[in-house]
């Protein structure tokens, strides 16, 4: 990582902390330097930055996001930020027949890195996350030793609604839950539903929501 990328990373993390607090609540497991797959709800482009800022400093270098190749390599700045600062794993959104879309993720996990994935596949604006896509199941099947840590990102949709450029300072938090594992013989749909409810269970209760 170059010095410029390092500084940009520090800057982004401190801006995220100033605007959102980016509080990490480690309820189900401590932050630890082991290989993990974090999976979370997805409401905003800021989700990844928030998780990243909530991680302790020394875990950030080995925890990588997934970025859509066509969007995040289109301009030089986007490409530089995702490649140099965040060390993103690029995936192709267009599915080709001869290639497994999970291939780059598998390569990153074999390399020993941790991943952050948003199994809904797209940003959802509803209160509850959409059904999870099957990628998480295939990764869990292929890497049974890697703990799957659910995370709930709260309030981030209020920071920057779609179409706005300037973020509004609102406190957000990332709650990390107890790690899951694929049970022997567990059905794909049952596992994905279990993973989704593990994320949903971390949602803080009792707060007033917008009417």
């Amino acid at each position, binding site marked *: 990582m170059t010095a410029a990328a390092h500084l940009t990373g520090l800057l982004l993390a401190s801006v995220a902390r100033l605007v959102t607090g980016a509080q990490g609540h480690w309820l189900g497991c401590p932050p630890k330097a082991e290989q993990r797959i974090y999976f979370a709800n997805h409401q905003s482009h800021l989700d990844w930055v928030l998780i990243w800022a909530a991680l302790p400093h020394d875990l950030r270098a080995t925890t990588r996001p997934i970025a859509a190749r066509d969007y995040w390599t289109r301009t030089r700045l986007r490409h530089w930020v995702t490649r140099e600062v965040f060390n993103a794993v690029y995936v192709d959104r267009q599915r080709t027949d001869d290639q497994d879309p999970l291939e780059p993720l598998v390569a990153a996990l074999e390399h020993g890195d941790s991943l952050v994935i948003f199994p809904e596949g797209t940003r959802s604006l509803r209160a509850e996350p959409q059904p999870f896509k099957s990628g998480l199941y295939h990764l869990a099947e292929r890497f049974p030793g890697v703990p799957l840590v659910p995370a709930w990102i709260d309030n981030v949709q209020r920071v920057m609604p779609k179409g706005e450029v300037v973020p509004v300072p609102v*406190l957000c938090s990332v709650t990390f839950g107890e790690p899951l594992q694929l049970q022997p013989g567990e059905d794909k749909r049952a596992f994905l539903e279990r993973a989704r409810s593990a994320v949903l269970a971390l949602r803080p209760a009792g707060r007033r929501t917008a009417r």
Partner: protein
Amino acid sequence: MNALRELTADQQVALLFVAVFGLLALATAAVVFWGLRHEEEEAGERVQRLQRDLGALWTGALIFWLAWASGAVGATLLFAALSFLALREFVTLVATRRGDHRSLILAFFVVLPLQYLIVAQRRFELFTVFIPVYAFLALPVAAALAGDPQRFLARNAEVQWGVMVCVYGLSHAPALLLLDFPGHAGRGAFLVFFLVAVAAAAQLAQEAASRWLRRRPVVRRIDRSFSWRAWLLGTLAGGTVGALLYWSTPFQPPQALGLGCIAGGAGTLGALVMQALKKDAGVRYWGNRSSVTGAVGLLDRVAPLCFAAPVFFHSVRWYFDIS
């Protein structure tokens, strides 16, 4: 006393801080010692609460020291940062909608910096009317232009109220630091100290009195301990502490008593109002991790000051006719 009077203003203020930090260090040492002796008993929770309160006091004292030591610019920047954090916490608690985005940006990134810029320039006439007059119009205009009529009044009232408390109210603390009292130049820190000491004394005395009197609470659903007699005792305690501190201020003892009562009473009533707001937002304790998104409990601590500071500042300016 005479030796004290001969010191320069800066030396007197420095001495004040030495005294405050000395007292805090003694109190901390006492609590640590007490905690060691009662380690495994049920006293643990009380020790923890004391430690938390002392921690808050340390933070407050350090902030005021930094504010004074760094001069006008530093003080303004410091309180501007506090305002920002308090407003951030406030906005988290109220239910804003998409249509509020622009007016919130206006509040955070235009109104707040401008208000503190005006304080730093000591333009107290403009400072007094900037938010109640100009921002009062600008914020709902920005919201109206977003074109969302749903709950328009309620949403705007929430934003306005947050700006009034967290920005307007809190900005009176650096204003006190910068207020040029005739014959009292450079001793603004004593006025802030007077205000904080009086507000804290009133709060503590009210809590102690309500525990001791066990009166029927006036507003059970908001605060289980608030009663008029306890409030009156708190206010009087504020006045007494104010009168005892008269030598540090430009006031005569009766004036200090009166101003102490005003600031103390306003602070405790402000705390009651914040209590009501917390109940409305469904928060029991502002530092709660489970129910509020990462809130750090700052708003809870600055709330009495947010309400007492403007009342105190404007009473002083009006009574002593300072422009």
